């Protein structure tokens, strides 16, 4: 691993890329570029784009597998770039790339770093990489304290629960758990109606209120008792669940009984995997923004002849932005084209109230009004306010779906998927095109479940201190043979009985005993309702 500053050519390219980024007035953190060889690159990816990680067999397994696939020709060892955003951001370049490719990678990284700085979910913290390196050292110390066997056992249990990290969920820690000390506010990309807090700021006269509102005394008493119960629980446990919590790993990290070593491991694993949620929720916008700025800066570099090989660049660019069907969406292609489309809409003043209210179609077709600000400012505002779900909901139309070939399938693939002939609206010798109308709905559905089961903590005191999880039914069954080992792992972390309600089954794991019980099926809405009323969400 070496800094680009050790290579005069790369140092020059870095200087030019940053110069153009500043000329375009981009909001950037400090960026540090390093060059890695292929093995280092593979290793970096397995470490979650951090330079160090604690010893663990999972990374070893993935690394051995990856090396084997590269040797067998099943996987390419050429990775163009990866970046760990934050301030400073660390970007890693592959030593096999040509100078022109290195420049394009640096320009691409500019887009990612700015996006992470600006976005509503803000994926940029100070010294993130350095903090992870600090946590790695703590985990290495924990390994010595815990002993190899328990360290592996605990890590394996954590590994099993990593998919249950959801810091930006509508039901994240900040929204679901009351604590004595305020939890760092986590942004979500989903609108949730806030509890009315204005009452606390208004002048209050309880006597007048009682006279005016004529509250039912039973109800008032209930409310009073709930409030007391909440305070007592908070005081006793340090937290109180007020809504289902989807960030299960985050909850365990904060509230499971842990030793200092165990806490170090949970801190490291949560912090290392925390950013996946951001990537899932912003990939289209993020990659599109990076491609957008990559192209802009590269054109400047070609113009000033800082790099050569524009044909090669065009070839690579078109390869990266190759269209794919919606379910295998290519975020580079979709994001890049959508940003360009939005830029055009803004430059023609088509994102305005007047345009939407215009009833004359010919006037709409020939609409061209100068916007109040440069389109790029509006685009940056978009980044500050929305994530992929809203981005696609607002701007992706059936016409664009067709134009971007998101509804296009290879004939062979269409046959394999047994697509209904009724859904095909166009075909040629190679491809068929599906009706674009339902495609958008399907694409948006992805953001509700991310193709993963939605599991929440709904009670932390179920049947004498048990942790009760709830699987929100969306018509698919959980893989049954994995429920027991997953609950066992959860039990190791919670150090008490754990339960899972899925459909009409209650699964429990306690004292090395796994049990399944038939129960009455419960809807998620009912759980919510009960929790809002401070009732037990699920009773046997």
């Amino acid at each position, binding site marked *: *691993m070496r*800094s680009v*500053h050790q290579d005069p050519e790369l140092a020059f390219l870095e200087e030019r890329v940053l110069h153009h980024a500043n000329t375009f007035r981009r909001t950037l953190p400090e960026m*540090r570029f*390093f060059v*890695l060889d292929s*093995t*280092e690159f*593979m*290793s*970096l990816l*397995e*470490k979650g784009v951090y*330079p*160090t*990680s604690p*010893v*663990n*067999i*999972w*990374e*070893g*397994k993935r*690394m*051995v*597998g990856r090396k*084997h*696939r590269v040797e*067998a020709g*099943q996987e390419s060892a050429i990775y163009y770039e990866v970046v760990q955003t934050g301030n400073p951001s*660390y970007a890693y370049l592959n030593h096999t790339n040509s100078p022109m490719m290195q420049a394009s990678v640096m320009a691409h990284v500019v887009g990612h770093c700015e996006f992470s700085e600006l976005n509503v979910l803000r994926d940029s913290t100070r010294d993130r*990489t350095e903090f992870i*390196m600090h946590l790695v050292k703590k985990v290495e110390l924990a390994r010595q304290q815990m002993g190899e066997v328990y360290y592996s056992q605990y890590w*394996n249990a954590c*590994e*099993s*629960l*990593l*998919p*249950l990290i959801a810091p930006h969920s509508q039901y994240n820690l900040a929204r679901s758990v009351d604590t004595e000390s305020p939890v760092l506010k986590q942004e979500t990309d989903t609108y949730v109606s806030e509890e009315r807090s204005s009452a606390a700021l208004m002048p209050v006269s309880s006597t007048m209120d009682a006279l005016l509102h004529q509250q039912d005394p039973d109800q008032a008493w209930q409310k009073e008792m709930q409030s007391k119960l909440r305070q007592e629980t908070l005081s006793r446990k340090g937290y109180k669940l007020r809504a289902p919590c989807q960030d299960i790993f985050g909850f365990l990290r904060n509230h499971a009984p842990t030793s200092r070593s165990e806490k170090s491991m949970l801190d490291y694993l949560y912090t290392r995997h925390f950013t996946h949620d951001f990537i899932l929720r912003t990939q289209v916008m993020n990659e599109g923004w990076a491609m957008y700025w990559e192209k802009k800066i590269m054109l400047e570099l070609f113009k000033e002849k800082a790099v050569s090989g524009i044909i090669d660049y065009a070839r690579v660019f078109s390869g990266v932005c190759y269209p794919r069907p919606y379910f295998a969406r290519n975020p580079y292609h979709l994001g890049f084209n959508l940003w360009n489309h939005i830029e055009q809409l803004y430059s023609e003043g088509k994102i305005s109230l007047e345009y939407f209210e215009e009833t004359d179609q010919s006037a709409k077709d020939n609409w061209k009004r100068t916007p109040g600000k440069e389109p790029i400012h509006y685009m940056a505002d978009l980044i500050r306010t929305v994530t992929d779900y809203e981005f696609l909901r607002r701007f992706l139309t059936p016409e664009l779906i067709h134009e971007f070939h998101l509804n296009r399938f290879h004939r062979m693939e269409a046959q394999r998927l047994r697509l209904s002939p009724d859904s095909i609206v166009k075909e040629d010798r190679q491809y068929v095109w599906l009706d674009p109308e339902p495609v958008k709905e399907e694409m948006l559905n992805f953001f509700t479940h991310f193709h*993963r*089961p939605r*599991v929440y903590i709904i009670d932390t005191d179920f049947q004498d201190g048990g942790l009760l999880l709830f*699987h929100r039914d969306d018509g*698919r*069954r*959980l*893989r*049954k*043979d*994995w*429920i027991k*080992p*997953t609950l066992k*792992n959860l039990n190791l972390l919670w150090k008490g009985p754990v339960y*899972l309600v899925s459909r009409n089954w209650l699964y429990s794991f306690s004292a090395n005993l796994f049990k399944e019980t038939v129960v009455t099926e419960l809807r998620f809405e009912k759980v919510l309702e009960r929790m809002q009323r401070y009732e037990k969400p699920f009773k046997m």
Partner: protein
Amino acid sequence: MPLLDTDNISSNESEGAFNEFIEDQLENLVDSILTEGDLTSVGDRGSEVIVEIDDIVAPTFTYGDESEGGGAAGAGPGRDGGKIRFNVPFEFLMERIARSLRLPHLRKQGRGKIKEVTHEFKTFAPVGTVLDKKRTFKRALKTSIGMRVYRPEEGRHEVHIHRRDRRYKVPERVEKPKFKAVVFYMGDISFSTYGERLKLEKRLVGFIQHWIDFNYGAKNVEHRFFVHDADAHEVQEEDFYRVGNAGGTLAAPVYHLVQQVATNEYDPNTTNFYAFYFGDGELFDEDAKEIVELLEGQMRPIFNRIGIVEVQPGRLSLLNRQVATQFHRDSIIRLGELNDRLEAIEVIKTLFSER
């Protein structure tokens, strides 16, 4: 600009931890192979052995059926329906089996040592067919400097290659010790060799084949199979387990035949002989005595090891008893009794351990 506090990004330690984990899994696999006593299911002798161990996958709440595996199959570490597949060299596996059973490697020194002749390009001469360009150029450069043709200080960089500068690679006869082994398997087909008895015998023969191949190299070992009822015959390996006869039993002819084959077809000075007999041991007294005489007079002096295994012996079995009177705790002649699968490991230890 400050660099990160690391010079090299590497997963070596984690890979090491994973490899240690796999080694442990392989030890478990060896234990299970030995419990089963069946090496034939593992792979071909002398080749790479593909072993499957349970994949390590972190379970989580996910959709899907229990039967669903993941990923594509392939050699090397990869997922194939919840299994990781590894190519393990046959030798690697046998080493572990040997370690697990605490078996010493077979002695190949002493008699039976022959030379394997190969030719290697080790020397160089002024005549030959394969020109050694490097040596030739070195000599030519020296000559050119001596003859003042090559004078870089004057800008002359000529190198003249004369005939006498040429050096050729010359093959040299190299003799390396080579060990050859012949293994004779003798089976009694006069009793009912089928079912459990046949399985036990087959597993034991399979292990012996693997073990001797491992020690000598598969190419240097010849396995020959003989059966007997009242007469003795040589058969193909596949027929060793198939033929059957309900006639009388005379085992001495098969020992005699093996001894004849060993001395007539091989040079006892250059060959390592091994012989293993499998039967129920129910012989006539005279027959057993004749065998003892044959063993003592003609076979023991030239054989490295002779194993006599009574497979599920009956009340009338006497072969091992007779042989034991003469060769109790002998270093060459080993006696075993195999009644069930679990005894296979003990019999193997008896046949191959040091004494």
